Structures are given as structure tokens and as C-alpha cells.
């Protein structure tokens, strides 16, 4: 049920994103000072901002950026995390604890703080932001996957396979991997809203995506000083970002109920 609602909201949002030009003929960065700050109307469905840029076009651009950052960051996280986590999970105690201590050094700091630090080094913009988020995000994934591998290694079917003389690569790919792929996907899904949150958060503060590219966070940040007089500039991006995260959250909740009824994986939001 959760998954169906989440999927349908997410699906319609993606369709709206892809068909964006049908709804709004304007370029997201096209400035038209004649109708600045105009309220929602038939020509501008969501109104315009202080430079007369069409808000619908900008919101859709922001959503595209949010979605692509979320998906890209979590897929790369999943890849790196699987690599590190599997190697650590299969290694002997010393290597494993060394690899995990290394990961814990960064992990014990708050995620957003480290992303901000990394983006201070890497500079502002879309790609540095993505790199900064991946630098930190894969560690979480590695921890989750190492735990999954370790748990699987304790299971009896692995012992049986081992006793039958199955070698490690085959053991991983044919015995362990199919059993942990579900929880892995759940962890990956849970990290998508996290990435979207972080991007919006940093853009809101003005240290993420840089103008003239619109991001949902920076749209809300720009709308803030004038929200009393032009509330539509706040309401539309805020609704869309909440709906976006809500749908992904519902979807990943549903997935988790399916694969991990004991709820051992981390809460993705925190």
C-alpha cells in the first residue's frame, strides 16, 4: 500500500519533470523584468520570481537536479560501499577492524558538517557538491553492507556451501549476494532522500547549487525575505520538495517492510 502510493506520487512527479516543457514554455533562466513577482496566472502557472523568471520552469529544473543528485549519489555510494563493505566483511579480523576504524573516523562526525567541509575544499557547484556527498555517503553504505555480509557469513547455508568446497568468489556471487541484495537496495533507497535533503539544505544556505541554476533549496531560500508579499514563491517549491521526499520515503519504507521486517537497517532520515 505504502509502496503503491509512494510509487504513484514519485512516478507522476518524474513524468511532470520529463514533460516540463509542455507545462511551461519558458526557459528556467529567461529573465523578463516586465512581469516580475507576478502571482500565479494562466501564462505563469506558479507565478514569477523577482527577475520575472517563470517559477514553474524553475521548480521543475530544481526537481530534476534534486532527483538526479539523489539517484546518482546513492548509486555511486552503493557501488563504493559494496566494494569496501564486502572486502571488509570477508577479510580476517585485523583487516576488517582496520578498514572499519578508518571508516568510523569520518562517520562519527555529523554528515552535513563533513559535506560542508568537503565542499569548502572542493568549491561550489553541482559536481563538487556531488563529490562531497559521495565522499561521506559511501561510508554509511559500507557499514550497512559489511554488517549484512557478516550476518550472511554466520548463516548455515554459507557454512554448508563452505563445507561443500565452494570458493569465496562463487560463495559471494551465488550464495550471499542474492540473499543480501534486497536489504542493500533498501539501504540505497533510504539514502536517496538523505542526499536530496542535503542538497536542498546546502542550496538553501547558499553553499550548494549556484545561481543561475535553480534548485528547490535555493528557490525557497530566495523566496524567504519576501514571503509575506509573494507567498507563491515559497509555497510551490516547498510543496514539491516535500512531496518528492515524501514519496521516496514511502517507497523505501514499503521496501524495508518487505525485505527487512525486523527493521535492523538505519533510519535513513537521520
Amino acid at each position, binding site marked *: 500500500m505504502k509502496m503503491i502510493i509512494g510509487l504513484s506520487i514519485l512516478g507522476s512527479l518524474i513524468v511532470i519533470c520529463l514533460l516540463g516543457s509542455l507545462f511551461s514554455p519558458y526557459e528556467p533562466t529567461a529573465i523578463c523584468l516586465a512581469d516580475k513577482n507576478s502571482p500565479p496566472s494562466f501564462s505563469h502557472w506558479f507565478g514569477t520570481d523577482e527577475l520575472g523568471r517563470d517559477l514553474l520552469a524553475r521548480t521543475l529544473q530544481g526537481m530534476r537536479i534534486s532527483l538526479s543528485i539523489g539517484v546518482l549519489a546513492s548509486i555511486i555510494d552503493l557501488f563504493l560501499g559494496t566494494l569496501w563493505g564486502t572486502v571488509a566483511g570477508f577479510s580476517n579480523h585485523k583487516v576488517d577492524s582496520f578498514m572499519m576504524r578508518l571508516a568510523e573516523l569520518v562517520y562519527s562526525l555529523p554528515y552535513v558538517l563533513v559535506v560542508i567541509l568537503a565542499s569548502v575544499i572542493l568549491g561550489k557547484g553541482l559536481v563538487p557538491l556531488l563529490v562531497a556527498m559521495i565522499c561521506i555517503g559511501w561510508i554509511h553504505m559500507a557499514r550497512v553492507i559489511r554488517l549484512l555480509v557478516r550476518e550472511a557469513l554466520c548463516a548455515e547455508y554459507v557454512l554448508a556451501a563452505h563445507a561443500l568446497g565452494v570458493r569465496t568468489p562463487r560463495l559471494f556471487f551465488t550464495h550471499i549476494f542474492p540473499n543480501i541484495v534486497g536489504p542493500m537496495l533498501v539501504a540505497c533507497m533510504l539514502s536517496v532522500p538523505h542526499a536530496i535533503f542535503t542538497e536542498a539544505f546546502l542550496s*538553501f544556505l547558499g553553499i550548494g547549487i549556484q545561481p543561475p541554476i535553480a534548485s528547490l533549496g535555493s528557490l525557497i531560500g530566495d523566496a524567504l525575505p519576501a514571503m509575506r508579499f509573494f507567498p507563491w514563491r515559497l509555497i510551490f517549491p516547498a510543496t514539491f520538495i516535500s512531496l518528492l521526499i515524501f514519496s521516496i520515503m514511502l517507497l523505501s519504507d514499503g521496501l524495508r517492510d518487505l525485505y527487512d521486517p525486523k527493521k535492523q537497517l538505519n533510519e535513513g532520515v537521520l
Partner: protein
Amino acid sequence: MESNYRHSATSTSVAIEAPQKSASFQAVWTIVRKLAQLSVSLLALLSVCFVIMHIVPGDPFQEEQAVPQEVLDNLRHKYGLDRSIFSQYVSYLGRVLHGDLGTSMRYPSESVVKIIGNSFPVSIHLGLQALVIAVIFGISIGSWSAYRSNRSFDVTMTVGSTFGVSIPSFVIAATIQLLFSLYWPLFPVARWDSFSHTVLPSIALSIGPACAIMRIMRASMLDTLDKEWVMMARMKGVPEWRVLLVHVIPNALLPVLHYMGPITANLLTGSFVIERVFCIPGLGQWFVLGVMSRDYPLIAGLTLFYSIVLYLVHTVIDIITIGFNKRLSQNECAR
């Protein structure tokens, strides 16, 4: 029952490594290990801060007009920039250990320590107030909706809390500000003077963590309600309130306690935007200002400070968790 308890303790909190050792030995050992880990992490963090300050291009003494080479050399010498990187690193560590985090580049009249001293009380006031609201509402609503699961209250609250964790804190803050101080002027719009100024920011900051606590509490409470000891207590005829307050809720609280660290981190980063929206002169504002203007000593000092605060919180949580476990295990023995 014993094995069940052990299982839940190892999976949710500090690992109990050797059951044969005494509980107090374990507690001391865990604290020592945590302290060692803490100092290594802090050292690593200090090094990262040092690298950040030195890796960036540019020089604090680059001025628009030409400065004579001798003056530049003197300045460099005064701030130790002509020495080797290693000796600079050592002296940086020494200064930090003496509590000197340097001076802000952008606001040269303010030392970083002074900035922290002035604005941290505001931030901690806001954070604690939000934490209290989040814990009270999260735990009470979460446990009630688990107790009456799948009724209308539970369904509403589950959907509501999922929605609550989905809304970014700045959206909540802006909406609350728009509704309750601009359209319906119940509370002051911004700034930080009297108690009424603190109401809206605290609520805005607490909604996300409250919903997170609610979700965790509901899940762990549902888990605990299924345990044999609860059934046992009911079979013995223990009154329902006593089953809940003595047998269920203390056990269900452990996972919530386990998540208090991330929740505190969440509050801390949330305070960056809340302070921005409500113009509160707290530490988050300074941090954002520092990042925006690339004020490296300020960024490094505040990061260090934040991390120490968080480590302290983590350590306190760990100690509380150990205490909880001990009490529970004593109960277990007594029964």
C-alpha cells in the same frame, strides 16, 4: 528470556563482548575504548582542519596595494608562516590544546573562542528546548500509537510522522513563521529576546526529530510488545499500566536512546537553517557566515567545537546506555 535480552542488547547498543566478565569491568572498558577512539578522531579532525587552512590557494596577507617585501616577510614571520609545515602543524596543535582557536579572518576583532562564548548559549538554549519538545512528543505519541496500533490514531500519526520527516526543516520554519507570526501575529517574527521569541524556532526545530523519534519508538515498542516477558507479565495478572510502564517502555526506549546521537546531530545542523530563518544570533549563523566567506579559522574552530560537543553527547548516551543495561540485567537476575 535471557538469550532474548542479550540479543536485543547486542544489536541495539554497545556490544557486550565477553559475557563472563563483570558488568562494571565492561563499563569501564567501554568508556576507556570510547575515550581512545574520541582522541584519535579529534586528532584526525584537527589535521583535516589544518590541511583545509593550508591547502587553499591564497594568502591572508595578499592586499590590493603592493606591500613591501620586508613587511610581508615580517608578517609571515610573526604568524609563523615561514616555518616548515610540520612545525606549523605542531604549534597549531599546541595552540588548540591551550584553547586558542585563532582569530576570525573576516572579523579580526573577534577571536573564535569569543564568538563561541557569545553565541553558543543561544544555540544550546534553542537546541535543548527543541530536544525536550521532540523527546516528550515523540515518545508519548510513538508509544501510544504502537499500543493502539492500526487504529485511526496510529494510522494518522504514522502517515503524519512520515510526512514530518519528509519536510525539510527550512520549509517547516518558513511555513510556521508565515502562519503564526505574519498572517496570524501570535508570536514575534524573528530575533531572540524573550521567551515568546523562542517558541516558534523551537517548535520548527523539533518537528523533524520528534517525528523521527516517534517512528523509532513506535517500531521498537511494537517489537517489545510481542516479547514473551510481556505476555508472561500479563498472564501473571500485572495491571496494564504496570506492564506498559515497567515492562515495555523501558525496554522499548533503548533503540531511541541509541538514535539520540544522530538526532542531536540532526538538531545541530537543523539549527543552521532555523537560525537563518528566524535571525537568531547563534553559532549556526556564524558557521554559515564562515563558510560563505571562506573564513578558515572560523570554520575550523567551529567544526572542532561542534565535534567535541557531539562526542560529549555520544559519550553521555553511551554511559546512559550502559547504566540502562546494567539495571535491566539486575532486574533480569532478580526475577
